[in-house]
């Protein structure tokens, strides 16, 4: 999407009539995310968390060099599918976002879009040192240093690069967190929405999308 596509303009309708459109209001929902309440019945919530932890659907979005570590996991050598982990092609179908390595500002914009399009409850695994403190790109002009300033992170996996085994261990850790009811990333994002948005807008200078991408 380019900035000019979001500007108000007059277009011709299929009948040939000129109509004014305001894409940011006409095409996108402007509502902000809300905190989802937990189930009032504790045992039901526990069951739901158990079920969630048993089917982690990962968004197939490789952001950095760590994306290469996900290929062995999908294939028979490490075979993450036996743990109930599978990769999905669209954000709408997935609930785990693996940020695989460094993030440039340009990619971060796409990451935010995809993350917001995912349906809650959603979890983020940050893979590699770059997501923690910038790693070897800590002084680069174009890569972010701390991922948790832009989206909430559930599990960090340190290393440059971590092996696929480490990623599998990270998935197991995430399952533990979800079963304990601590996988509250989406709610954290909704609660501190303004802070996250301010951080995002500080570094993404040409903001050309709605504040929340439903």
């Amino acid at each position, binding site marked *: 999407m380019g900035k000019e596509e979001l500007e108000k303009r007059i277009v011709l309708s299929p009948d040939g009539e000129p109509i004014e459109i305001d894409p940011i209001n006409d095409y996108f929902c402007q509502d902000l995310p809300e905190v989802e309440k937990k189930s009032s019945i504790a045992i039901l919530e526990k069951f739901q968390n158990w079920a969630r932890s048993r089917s982690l659907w990962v968004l197939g979005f490789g952001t950095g060099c760590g994306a290469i570590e996900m290929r062995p996991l999908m294939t028979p050598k490490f075979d993450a599918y036996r743990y109930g982990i599978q990769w999905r092609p669209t954000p709408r179908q997935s609930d785990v976002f693996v940020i695989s390595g460094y993030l*440039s500002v*340009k990619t971060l914009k796409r990451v935010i879009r995809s993350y917001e399009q995912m349906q809650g409850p959603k979890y983020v695994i940050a893979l590699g040192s770059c997501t*923690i*403190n910038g790693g070897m790109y800590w002084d*680069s*002009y*174009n890569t*972010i*240093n701390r991922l948790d300033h832009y989206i909430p992170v559930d599990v960090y996996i340190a290393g440059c690069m971590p092996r696929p085994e480490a990623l599998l261990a990270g998935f197991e850790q995430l399952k533990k967190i979800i079963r304990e009811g601590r996988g509250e990333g989406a709610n954290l994002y909704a609660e501190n929405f303004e802070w996250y948005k301010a951080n995002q807008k500080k570094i993404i200078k*040409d903001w050309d999308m709605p504040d929340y991408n439903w």
Partner: protein
Amino acid sequence: MKELIDRLKTSYTVEDYIQQRSDLAHITVSKETAVDFISHLQRVEGYKHLVILTAVDWIEDGKFQLTYLLNNPEMKNDINVKVFIERENATMESIHHLWEQARTYQRELKEMFGIDFPGSPGVDKPFILEGWHDLPPYRRDFDTKKYSEETYFPRPGREKNDPATYMKQKLYPNE
């Protein structure tokens, strides 16, 4: 390649000439004759392949060096055409009429070094930095560490060691 260089010297002013290997020569020409020289190499001498177009920032001399690396697939040798241009308000003639792909290189140079190529298609469009307002980042007076520290929320507690002294202390603590 010697004959070729002698032939070129008769019709063009070659400011500097270095034969690095038997199949690689560096030729420095002036900014005014550069595009003419390059198109002669392409059309007459068979240097049909533009390998890369890149720049070097000689900040001490106040110059940018443009590097046009050309390849002759039949003779299997390369010519590196070096052009020095002023660093202030750096502009250069576009060569997208010779090689269509040069427009991508020129777009990159515009964004990363701030070298303008008037007339090159799409040269002002952002290449990889979206919405960049600072100094072009590949210029040597751009302090990338300072920019990163001011912009990207550095995590406190990051330690940095000089690898040589650190490993010496680790391996030979008594010395």
